[in-house]
């Protein structure tokens, strides 16, 4: 058996067999009899199938490279209904069964029971797993982080009040005991939050996959289909439900989530370079990015849920070419450009093939059409550091405030002089055109003007002339037009509260 397909399933080493493919959720339930992980929706919208996926922490991997125990594992709660088996090798998959103590309940489970939180019970394995992800990942074990960790776990019975009481209990009792100098997993194991075997999982994984060349791309098999470029899969697997069953069987797969070089964020010259494989959750927590764009954390909080953001990538939100992508809209406003490399380049370890840059404003050609050649990979997004001096505003209106796709989303970037003169402006809108739209005419009108109520009122007329929303399940065209008008007002009120008042606009 090749160790290349070896991974940890809870406390055991596990090998994928040659016929094993498809979704992790199905495999767990049907092949392994691990039925604690539930299927509630099959599209990442409910969290009943949440599992933990641990992998060597790329940020710490280099400093641990020569240690026999390997780098500590970093765990993320993810949806097993949007995860295919090929993602498992070299990683640690943890299900609810792998969190249960041999007898009794762990503190998370006990707190939920004490609060009387479970009713029908179907969503609770996922909730326990997500809260474990919170304990593994939250810097300060704050209530805010705990609630955020459950933002993708739907409970139809409880109304969440009892779950929130359990969270209060957990945070109240454990946050004060947190010792930053101790390794987190060891501390959680001592508390009983995770089982003892977690403390040795990194070493275990490092030994069992020592021979595997996990960082190198898998050679493309002689498939009958074009290679599949797979990153998080959180949208791709919903658009193409058969794909997980074809991966590596009919179609060779380039697994971008294994490319460490795609997951980095760094400065280069006058730009911030965000790797295409950076997850939305990592972007949300990246200090450099958030310092550059203070509006970003709140904006990215509105993107799907933690368990999706833990897999979904920056590049994915661009190349899926949705006219309503939150990241696409934000990056358009930030004057970003994208770096495209040919896929062949990615197959070589050096990944130094030909590349080109395309301004994001020229990237979206039409509905689901991109300025991208077949075989190209979006390896990075580049943001000019100059935007750090600008005022940025993000707005998203959706039926449900969180965990929803927008009816209309929008981002604005204004460079203002002391007297309010607009030296540069970007206005991006989602949900009002076949593509994430840069409102060029409105921008042209505003450039050089002084930002005040009169300018905003004049500009909104131009804006409404250059958008063309349609009726769909996210809202009627009329509604979206009204939203576009109002989120534009909201931008103005946010970036220039000293110049524009609510009363002047509505």
């Amino acid at each position: 058996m090749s160790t290349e397909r070896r991974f940890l399933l809870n406390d055991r080493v596990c090998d994928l067999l040659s016929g094993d493919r498809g979704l992790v959720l199905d495999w767990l339930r049907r092949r392994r009899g691990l039925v604690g992980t539930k299927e509630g929706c099959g599209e990442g919208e409910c969290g009943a199938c949440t599992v933990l996926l641990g992998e060597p922490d790329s940020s710490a991997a280099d400093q641990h490279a020569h240690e026999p125990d390997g780098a500590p594992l970093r765990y993320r709660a993810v949806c097993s209904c949007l995860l295919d088996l090929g993602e498992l090798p070299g990683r640690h998959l943890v299900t609810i069964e792998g969190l249960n103590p041999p007898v009794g309940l762990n503190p998370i489970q006990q707190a939920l029971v004490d609060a009387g939180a479970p009713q029908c019970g179907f969503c609770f394995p996922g909730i326990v797993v997500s809260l474990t992800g919170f304990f593994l990942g939250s810097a300060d074990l704050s209530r805010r982080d705990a609630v955020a960790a459950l933002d993708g776990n739907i409970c139809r019975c409880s109304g969440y009040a009892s779950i929130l009481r359990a969270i209060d209990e957990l945070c109240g009792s454990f946050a004060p005991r947190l010792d930053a100098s101790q390794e987190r997993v060891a501390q959680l194991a001592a508390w009983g939050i995770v089982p003892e075997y977690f403390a040795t999982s990194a070493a275990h994984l490092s030994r069992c996959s020592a021979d595997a060349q996990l960082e190198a791309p898998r050679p493309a098999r002689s498939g009958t289909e074009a290679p599949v470029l797979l990153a998080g899969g959180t949208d791709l697997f919903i658009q193409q439900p058969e794909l997980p069953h074809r991966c590596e069987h009919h179609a060779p797969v380039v697994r971008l989530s294994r490319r460490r070089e795609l997951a980095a964020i760094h400065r280069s010259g006058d730009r911030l370079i965000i790797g295409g494989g950076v997850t939305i959750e990592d972007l949300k927590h990246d200090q450099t990015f958030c310092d550059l764009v203070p509006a970003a954390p709140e904006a990215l909080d509105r993107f799907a849920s933690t368990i999706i953001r833990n897999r979904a990538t920056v590049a994915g939100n661009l190349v899926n070419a949705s006219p309503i992508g939150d990241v696409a809209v934000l990056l358009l406003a930030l004057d970003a450009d994208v770096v495209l490399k040919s896929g062949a380049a990615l197959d070589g370890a050096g990944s130094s093939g030909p590349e080109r840059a395309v301004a994001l404003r020229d990237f979206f050609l039409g509905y689901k059409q991109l300025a991208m050649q077949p075989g190209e990979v979006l390896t990075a997004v580049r943001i000019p550091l100059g935007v750090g001096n600008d005022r940025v505003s993000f707005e998203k209106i959706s039926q449900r405030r969180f965990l929803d796709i927008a009816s209309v989303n929008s981002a604005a970037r204004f460079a203002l002089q002391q007297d309010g003169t607009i030296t540069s402006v970007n206005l991006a809108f989602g949900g009002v055109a076949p593509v994430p739209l840069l409102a060029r005419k409105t921008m042209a009108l505003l450039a050089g003007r002084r930002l005040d109520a009169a300018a905003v009122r004049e500009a909104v007329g131009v804006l409404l002339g250059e958008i063309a929303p349609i009726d769909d399940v996210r809202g009627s065209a009329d509604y979206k037009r009204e939203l576009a008008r109002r989120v534009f007002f909201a931008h103005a009120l946010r970036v220039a509260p000293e110049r524009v008042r609510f009363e002047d606009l509505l």
Partner: protein
Amino acid sequence: MNHGDLFLHVRGESTYVDDITVPQGTLHAAVLHAPIARGTIERLDSARALQHAGVVRVLTAADIPGENQIGPILPDEPLLAEREVLHVGQPVAVVLADCPRTARQALKDIELRITPLPPIFSAREAAARGHLLVPARTFALGDVDAAWADCALIVEGRAATAAQEHFYLETQGALAIPAENGTVVIHSSTQSPTGVQRQAARVLGVPMHAVAVDVRRLGGGFGGKEDQATVWAVICALGAQLTGRAVKLVLGRAEDMVMTGKRHPYEADFRLGLAADGRFLAYEVTLYQNAGSAADLSTAVLERSLFHATGSYFIPNVRATGLSCRTNLPPFTAFRGFGGPQGMFMIEAAIDLAACRLGAPRHALQRRNLLETGSVFPYGMAAENCSAAACWDAVDREHGIDTAARAAAVHNSTNRATKRGVAVMPVCFGISFTNTSMNQAGALVHVYSDGSVGLSTGAVEMGQGVAIKLRRIAAATLGIGLDCIRLESTNTTRVANTSPTAASAGADLNGAATQLACRQVLAQLLAAAAAQLNIDNAERLTIAGERVCDNGERTQLGWNELVRAAHLARTNLSAHSHYATPRLSFDRATEKGRPFAYHVYGTALVEVTLDVLRGTAAIDRVSLVHDGGRSLDLKTDIGQIEGGLAQGLGWMLLEEATYDAKGRLLQDTAGKYKVPDIKFAPAELNVDFLPDADNPEAVLASKAVGEPPLMYGIGAYFAVLDAVRAALRDAGGGIQNRYDAPLVPARIMALLAGSPRSSTRS
């Protein structure tokens, strides 16, 4: 070990249908459903589907050995469409294959040709054309026609509520296992094991004793599995009977959403008349219920709407008319509240309109007209032990209704970008099946010779906590610890002829039956104890703390020793009991009677903030006082209140299930239909029980709790409307006499911006 459900839930060790280990050779079913809303089937050919490797059989109506009929009230619902299809999502054929994927892939190779016929989707249009399930029903009190003349103010308007998807986390599913001698065992995620058994026997053409239905628990039901779990279970049973192999069917989320019915959409015309002092004098309402293409439970749902047409208020002159309108949408079905929420929404809308016209606080009119003990409902029953005012006043005392309203007004006078809204929602909900014959239950208790106890009833555990309540009742009655009592699965061979677990009555009915059965066993055991202790009069004996007591004094005889001795003395250690709720009656000829054992009362104060610019609302605080009687399990009851409230808030502010011009569900995936998430929850929630509450009409003075709290959510609609009006007053807007729920952001925006809203069709 005998852990409770909660312990198993958090360890992921609770068993649902999809978790049951299947027998070797189990087949998996996939269902082909009608793609159009109405038409005649011209051709149905499965030859190409049968060529798929792994496909074993394709079932159509022609394969049904018994009756192709599963309608629970009216015989108008075939299991599989035969000559015509009547709604998008109607099951037409079933593929049985080795694995679920193969079965689903083969569906597209079934050739189904349908000649379309013109469908009807609107309840009012169906009514106009006379497409009613049953003749219109009218509940009347006093002389409403004469009363209008006495009214100082009369308001008229329209209101409508939308469909609501149940979104139980566990989708519909069943596993049927054939057994010897033509029998079948069905594991079903159903609230109605007997209903599944009855319809399966009907379709298979076998007696009911050839079908056993077993239910361990449900991953949520909320009414959606009261009747609509049946079709999937019967499909599996049919497949098992015809192939001799086990058949499993678990619906995918999108399949479930498209094929199953939801809470009924209602439209209504209302007219409310008030005296100069604010008393309600006359109320007339016509309810148009969109029933969908088959009766399902719609007539019973409509009946409950009529029972709750006057909400928590006494109105001396009432005429409430209800029409169950047949349309070409999926059959709408039971959903927590069962028509009650729709009936209550309409009267609250009427009160709102009256308050607007009077310029009076809405809550003043509500409080002025609350029910009191002795108040007569339109259906002739007088309110008993009425705690409507007590709950209201407790909320007012603890949380200050006027204070909240004044604080909102102050905020609104100084803020234009945000507006606060306040509303109070009193709830009065009748407990009992309105079909009197359904108010019965059974229980079977076995005391095993080691002292452990197995309890079976007709109740299905679906998260509402009936399991812990039944175990508590058994433990309290037998005088032993909770750990001794194991609640068995709900199985039609152990307790037969059961009513569905519904109408909030599961614990009332099955709890009372449990108490009776345990008393029987107890009497048998105490007789044995008397012999053991050489005491003539067993009536002196009781059991407490797992020990026999003589006149209250602990004896040396413990529970385990007693049971062992009783067994050796050949004592019957089992009992079966039957309970029927006393004093119930209802005459449908006169629409009068005493249909309910009692009513549940409570009041909620809802406070919200509206973002005027963005047209979105957030729930700041819900404070409620609920008359729960003496709770059988406090955490369970609090959970039911909080969870019911959340579903009500979702129904009023967030969740929207609508159909397009061809009768197709627009929100047909989990990604499109929005249920409350953790961040939608009210920022502050205060739940209190009415102190010193009591209830002589139910087991251990408890009260049913499942459905009533959902209707507190109606307050959120009027609180948001209150905030919207504050914003409109700034803009000089007027009063509307149309009330459309849910108040989702798009609808809020339509009110704020005064623009037409075209996304929703229903």
